[in-house]
């Protein structure tokens, strides 16, 4: 859920939004009739909440600090840069990569959360990671120059 938010909103806002989504899910869990549908259900709530956030507070959203709190400035910068690079990837790769690299989910878990087949997730992880590696490499080269 947090990763889904990270794919769309700044890091600072993602934590608070995750909390809101949890609370919303907790109070409306009775509307979920099929327990097996929980991952897709909460994923949909999360995406809607992120869209809602961006629609209502576009200007503020841009100003929100994307650096992770608690880490050293260098680590915060590197994490923000990596997040930025992931967000620049095609939409199909963003959520799987964030779920895998940030939240530590397995391919099967990602498939359940994103509502994709395992094969699609496998391909997205594979292609997404390689594309991310290229982009991060290009950025580092740019910085070195």
């Amino acid at each position, binding site marked *: 859920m947090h990763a889904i938010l990270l794919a769309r909103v700044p890091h600072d806002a993602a934590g608070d939004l995750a909390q809101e989504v949890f*609370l919303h899910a907790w109070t409306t869990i009775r509307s979920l009739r099929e327990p097996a549908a929980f991952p897709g259900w909460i994923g949909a709530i999360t995406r809607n909440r992120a869209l809602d956030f961006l629609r209502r507070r576009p200007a503020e959203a841009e100003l929100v600090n994307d650096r992770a709190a608690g880490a050293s400035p260098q680590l915060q910068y590197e*994490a923000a840069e990596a997040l930025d690079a992931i967000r620049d990837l095609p939409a199909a790769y963003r959520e799987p990569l964030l779920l895998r690299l*940030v939240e530590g989910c397995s391919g099967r878990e990602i498939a359940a959360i994103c509502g994709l087949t395992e094969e699609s997730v496998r391909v997205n992880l594979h292609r997404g990671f390689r594309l991310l590696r290229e982009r991060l490499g290009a950025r580092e080269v740019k910085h070195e120059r």
Partner: protein
Amino acid sequence: MSAENDRLDRYLWDPSATPDPEVRALEQRLASARFDPRRHPLVLPRLSRPGVVAFRTAIALAVAAVAIVAVGLTAYWSWRWSWTAGASWAAEIHNSSDNTTLRTRIAVDTPLQLGETRSARVDIARIGTMNVAPESTFTLAETNSVRHRVVFDRGSVSVRIWAPPGMFAFRTPGGTIRDLGCIFDLAVGPDGTSRVRVDTGWVQMDNDFGESLVPAGASAEMRRAARPGVPIYLDASDVFATAIRSAQNGGDASERRELDTIIRTARRRDVLTLLMLANVSATDIKRVLLERAAELRPAPTGVSVDAIVAGDRDQLWKWHATLDLPPVKSWWRNWRDALPGR
């Protein structure tokens, strides 16, 4: 190179597999972006169970319904009892000779005399109706939100009222007939004697000489310049009823003359009549009546014939209170009297 790619893909798919250095490095780089539950503690609201929600909803709906009904009833009662002072009453006067009905209004201080072929149905403001028989004469004397008074000189009338006690009354030649929330009939003869017959609730008759409370199922008379008569149940024997009326109309001598008949023909239910007659009788007659009443329906604990004869009226009314009579203050229980068609 292929082995490295395999390891990378395996680790990408399964975080528990052998770590790939490049993926691992990126994981560590992004570690600070991971959701930290310590920074976002969740305080979950307590969830109501569906049954509790349904119960609460039902309670809320019930409370709302009761409130709506209460407001509606209050508004209805306020409307029903409110009346502009001096406003005329609606009436329909029916003429049996040509079978015609005239809609009209009865104004204050304007006598209405009905001939032998005319009867009237009159709305008593908004609190009830009265059906006046032919050859009756009456006048609306006073009408407002708290008092409605009709002077009834002669004739007969059937009344249905649903209102607090005393709001409506007839003034007759013999005295005042007060509605205490009921249905009753009143007849006033040429000699000015009023006869009341009560169907529901109570009627009070009073004049300068005293008062008499008449419950449902009983009748009573009130003559000019005489104490109002005691209530006599409609199902009492004719002999008993005649003896009671005769006893009241002829003074002590008549009462002594009728005493034996009264004692002999009284039933358990007639204890009310005996008590009320004893209340206004001479001491020697009072004792005989009370002793007979005690035989038919023993006096309650703490009440004695001797004490009542000695003048303790409170004890007589304690005895009266044990007679299964409708409570005067609960006039509102006769709400059916407010319905049309009774």
